[in-house]
């Protein structure tokens, strides 16, 4: 396996946050409504990881370093792990495991419906993220995994519908997401310059 230390570093960097938040909740540092704080942070964490995952391909093109691609699958799976935690925290701390209420929410609230759709897409991507599925699905695998762009759209919409009075934070994430999507348009994707050619080639020599 290439880049073992890089992979481990990414693994630790992604894992540390939920553990830190759980510790903070334990230590009473999240205020009087820790459940809500956890749900919000895990949701935002999911979005951030999604954006980071989507930036790996452009980063590789920009820098020529293949290490970015080596952690892309891992980051995608972390994104899925965060969304699972986000949903679990929502079910436990907001709904209090009231399943009938969950049914009501799933039928009545557009932002819950959109969030659930996004989760189901991420589930499909996570389940087919292994080599076996890649071989088995062949050309269809790539098509299926373009669902990630749909997930980004659903996630941003889910977030937008929670905003109550200030769009700033949402706007920042939306702009980053839009840039990452635009970079995928074929005419643009071909033109992404390699910024650090020299460094990349010298790294290869070393």
């Amino acid at each position, binding site marked *: 396996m290439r880049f073992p230390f890089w992979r481990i570093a990414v693994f630790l960097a992604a894992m540390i946050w939920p553990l830190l938040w759980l510790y903070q909740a334990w*230590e*009473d540092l999240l205020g009087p*409504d820790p459940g809500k704080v*956890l749900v919000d942070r895990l949701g935002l964490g999911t979005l951030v990881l999604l954006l980071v995952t989507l930036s790996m391909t452009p980063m590789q093109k920009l820098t020529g370093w293949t290490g970015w691609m080596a952690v892309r699958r891992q980051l995608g799976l972390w994104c899925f792990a965060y969304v699972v935690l986000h949903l679990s925290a929502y079910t436990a701390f907001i709904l209090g495991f009231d399943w009938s209420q969950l049914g009501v929410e799933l039928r009545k*609230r557009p*932002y819950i419906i959109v969030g659930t759709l996004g989760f189901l897409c991420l589930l499909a991507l996570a389940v087919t993220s292994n080599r076996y599925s890649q071989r088995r699905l062949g050309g269809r695998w790539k098509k299926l995994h373009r669902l990630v762009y749909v997930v980004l759209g659903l996630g941003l919409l889910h977030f937008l519908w929670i905003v109550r009075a*200030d769009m700033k934070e949402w706007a920042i994430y939306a702009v980053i997401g839009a840039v990452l999507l635009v970079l995928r348009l074929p005419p643009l994707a071909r033109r992404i310059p390699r910024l650090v050619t020299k460094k990349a080639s010298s790294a290869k020599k070393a």
Partner: protein
Amino acid sequence: MLIKVPKASDCHESDVTPESLYLSRRNVLGAAVAGLAVGALPRWVFADDAARYAEVEPGRAPAWFSEKLPSTRWGAVAVKDEAITPFKDATHYNNFYEFGTDKGDPAANAGSLKTEPWTVVVDGEVGKPGRYALEDFMKPYQLEERIYRLRCVEAWSMVIPWIGFPVSALLKEVQPTSNAKFIRFETLQDPKSMPGQRSGFALIDWPYIEGLRLDEAMNPLAILAVGMYGRELPNQNGAPLRLVVPWKYGFKSIKSIVRISLVSEQPKTTWQSIASDEYGFYANVNPTVDHPRWTQARERRLPSGLFKPNVRDTQMFNGYADEVASLYTGLDLRKNY
């Protein structure tokens, strides 16, 4: 330091909060993890020695407040069998978008608010309009303590001991004309001290506006508050003067008021202007009418721990139906949410 001996006729906090021991989450967890019998330390919400309430950060009270405080009628209105929210939570979990949209922003940023000197304008359909320095504005009123439930439209709630006076006393003072049908309140607009008002992405058209029907304002439960937990209002809780209407969602209880107008038309309130399908003029607490984005049937009574969630059913008119339901006879509360 407040040492008040209440009159025999006064209610005492201990009468109204017999279950007021607040178990620290950490203690409960620690005990559970250690596999010990839970010997969590009870922390009585009332304290009869130094201060009335536990762990209240002392403030720097304006002179007029310190002068009035000793004659306060303590516990004039209280809630039965419900613990008072810890001071720290009531002052560090706030919606006051003038200071930012995160719950912790008001506590972090409201220090910049200058509450002295403070001017209140009374105008519109009144016999005695005027522009008052707050200490003059406050002169006619006897302070009383009102322990009220506070239900936020976001489905969390607290119990807070306010200090203030009835809006009806103010109305008596300023003498509304026969044209006055509504009362309109306005929050300070001062982008220099209020970072939220400087945000280019805010959906709110400042200043914040709220209002009540005149008969709602006359209801004895509606008060203007200047203090809480036995001290003056902390800035993040709407210092130096705010409205408290306990049977309505919290956003009706406008903070840091600079202008009070008696008007003939229903005022266009801030949240109604942003999203009239989500926030109505009345905004009465009503478990049977959902917010379009979440249910209002239940609420998280804060503090609500991770492993000890404090979720309860929301009551009609936040439990004040006996006092206020008659205001709305014949009104379709589904349409007039």
